[in-house]
């Protein structure tokens, strides 16, 4: 994969260059201290992958992303995961790396990028970056509350409930109220574990205690199941 690095900090570029050199399948074409220079380069050149720092003065990584007409895969690099959340709205974001980047974590991100490439080349299954990254059961899930990012272990979520403009996320340990929609969180949750059983509820299938005609018991919550969702629920339970 031909790649470029965009980071205003030289140290970060040297670290990434060193890590790129360790991977045979990566070919570092160029590195840029700002997004403007990279944009000029991309007008005449094509790359497969961009390592992009989010937090840059004047023209941020997010501003840069918005200018891309046919974006390649992007791996975000940041010292602050808070800035990565917004970027995950984009399907071509493969992963984000928290600085200081370790070799092991870097290799994992490249592996994701390679898998993404294979998925894109195969016309039958449509696999988006979001699916690879956010729907991975092993991945942590971050929610933004009062400008703080809180990490949630995906399997610990047992219920997500829509509450107007908010959603309530219930985990084994705690409950969180987040300004978001059920649709958005549904996109991030792994299908293997979660199912939307009602227009206001997503449940973790592994946490079901019992099922009655039109409801399921999860922990102490009795959750209604839509008539239209019941067949799928029963089918999924057979698979467990």
């Amino acid at each position, binding site marked *: 994969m031909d790649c470029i690095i965009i980071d205003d900090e*030289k*140290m970060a570029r040297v670290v990434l260059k*060193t*890590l790129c050199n360790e991977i045979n399948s990566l070919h570092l074409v160029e590195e840029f201290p700002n997004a403007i220079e990279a944009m000029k380069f991309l007008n005449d050149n094509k790359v497969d992958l961009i390592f992009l720092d989010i937090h840059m*003065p004047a023209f941020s990584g997010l501003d840069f992303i918005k200018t891309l007409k046919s974006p390649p895969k992007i791996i975000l690099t940041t010292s602050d995961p808070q800035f990565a959340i917004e970027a995950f709205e984009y399907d071509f974001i493969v992963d984000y790396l928290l600085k*200081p980047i*370790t070799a092991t974590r870097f290799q994992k991100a490249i592996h994701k990028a390679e898998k993404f490439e294979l998925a894109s080349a195969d016309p039958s299954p449509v696999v988006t970056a979001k699916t690879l990254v956010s729907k991975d059961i092993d991945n942590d899930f971050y929610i933004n509350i009062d*400008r703080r990012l809180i990490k949630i272990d995906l399997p610990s979520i047992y219920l997500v409930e829509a509450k107007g403009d908010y959603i309530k996320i219930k985990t084994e340990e705690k409950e969180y109220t987040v300004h978001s929609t059920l649709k958005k969180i549904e996109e991030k949750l792994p299908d293997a574990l979660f199912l939307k059983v009602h227009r206001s509820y997503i449940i973790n299938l592994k946490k079901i205690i019992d099922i009655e005609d039109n409801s399921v018991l999860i922990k102490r919550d009795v959750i209604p199941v839509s008539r239209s969702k019941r067949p799928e629920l029963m089918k999924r339970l057979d698979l467990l």
Partner: protein
Amino acid sequence: MQETPNLNYVNQLARGDEAIKNELITVIKTEFPEEKEDYYKSVKEQEFKKIEENVHRLKHKISILGLEKSYKIANEFEHNLREHSLEKQQDFEKILIAITNYIETI
């Protein structure tokens, strides 16, 4: 016990390659004093947005030098700056002094 800067991360990255290690150390020794100077300039001008950007850049050096507790302090300071508060400034500047002293030895 106060933590001390170290080259553990640099050594892990270089994997015994002295040329890489030297390149990384050279960048730290060049970039850190520049970033520190920018920081003090912004503090003098009381430009919160600029101070925040300076701290953000310095944070990476702090983490690269293995200063985990200091990194948390820098993070808190950066967040405070967003609220136009200088809380943690003194603690942050102690970290800068510790790094300044350390990089003279490497």
